[in-house]
């Protein structure tokens, strides 16, 4: 089963090729064989069956979150306009959407 919640790297043991990661407050040891050459403490990683698969790109994550915020704001703006529009038009005159 794939877990998509990232974990934060707490400490690294290059000798053993493992790291301690924190997933929602639970700490565990994972293999870092595939990212050993670049992983740093504080990185976010995805864990799958006991191994870190990658280092998550925080910039892209931030970008996505900002984009969704924008979509919500746009939607709320549109809904507000629609409400004003609806209250301007008498119900039943066929002009409503």
């Amino acid at each position: 089963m794939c877990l998509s919640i990232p974990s934060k790297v707490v400490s690294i043991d290059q000798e053993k090729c493992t790291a301690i990661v924190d997933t929602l407050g639970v700490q565990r040891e994972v293999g870092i064989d595939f990212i050993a050459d670049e992983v740093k403490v504080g990185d976010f990683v995805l864990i799958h069956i006991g191994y870190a698969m990658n280092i998550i790109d925080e910039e892209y994550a931030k970008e996505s979150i900002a984009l969704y915020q924008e979509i919500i704001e746009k939607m709320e703006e549109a809904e507000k306009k629609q409400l004003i529009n609806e209250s301007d038009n008498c119900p039943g005159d066929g002009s409503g959407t």
Partner: protein
Amino acid sequence: MAVELKDFYEKFRDPKTIKALSKAINQEAQKLDHPINIMEVCGGHTHTIMKYGLLQLLPKNIRFIHGPGCPVCIMPKERIDHAYILAMQEDVILCTLGDMIKVPGSRGSLQDARSKGADVRVVYSPLDVMKIAKENPTKKVIFFAIGFETTTPMTVALIENAMKQKISNILYHINHVTVPEVMRELIDSRDEHIDSYNNQIDAFLGPSHVSVITGSKIYEEFPTKYKRPVVVAGFEPVDVMEGVLMIIYQFLENRCEVEIQYKRSVNRNGNINAQKLIEKYFEKRELFKWRGLGNIPKSAWRLKDEYEHLDAEKLYELPKEEIEDHKLCICGDILRGMAKPTECQVFGTACTPQKPLGSCMVSSEGACAAYYKYGNLLQEVQ
């Protein structure tokens, strides 16, 4: 702002965002001149779609076809029989991941083997196999390795680390399969039957974690050769909805390409270290039989000949003949996206997660299990 850990699950599951994306999808889909069937290849996506009730948020002309991306579901009975036979050997401890032990082969499941005295152990990670091997030096520990590209590197890391630590009592039965070959097979088999099926795949929602390892480059043939767009999406509901929207935009703008929605974890090249490690130990099989899909060329890995002393398939006498599936179970059609779980006459009656007849009901990533668990959300859709 720094990204906090909670952002990753709160922001990508936010109902407001899901609703906003649903609205955008509904608006944009009105402009389409034909319905779009999107195959989500991966069982993790199927699970998200069902769990968050995303089907109800889509317009009628955007449909999901559930794909074969559940490693437990596609395992043919003969391979499960191999595991069963290996587990029943006198000096063997058989280790495998999660749901695999519940799937019935022709002799029973690994759970049944265990009740007959076999030493079968479910491991959370291949790392546990190493521990078991060290604790049981007089036993042969056989790792029945399953999974798509996501789990393949972890098996190879086990092989590498066991060698480094000179642990010589671990053997492997390799069943790792690959995504592009099955996607190709699904399109080809449909193209032959195009008149008899109205469920042509128009686009793919590419798997999340498979792509973390492989990169998005493995899908590049689909837009060019097959004219099917691929959007690699994350596992969270917001990711899936945005992925759908990106597919719709490709159709509206007459584009056909590989795009990545899941940019926070996926790039074009993937994890090169993991890919190199796989190529060191594994090579492609000529053919591998997938449950419900038959033999697919170059769709699975095996150990290279130079490591045959580690290969349980070569070291033990294991039957080679093919085995038919249960006649009433339509897992095969479900894995090909030709039928929905609710079209199966034993769904939820003779076949339940507690007592599964077919593999799609066993794994939590199987379409049947997802429909069974979250099926109450479907009434509005049907």
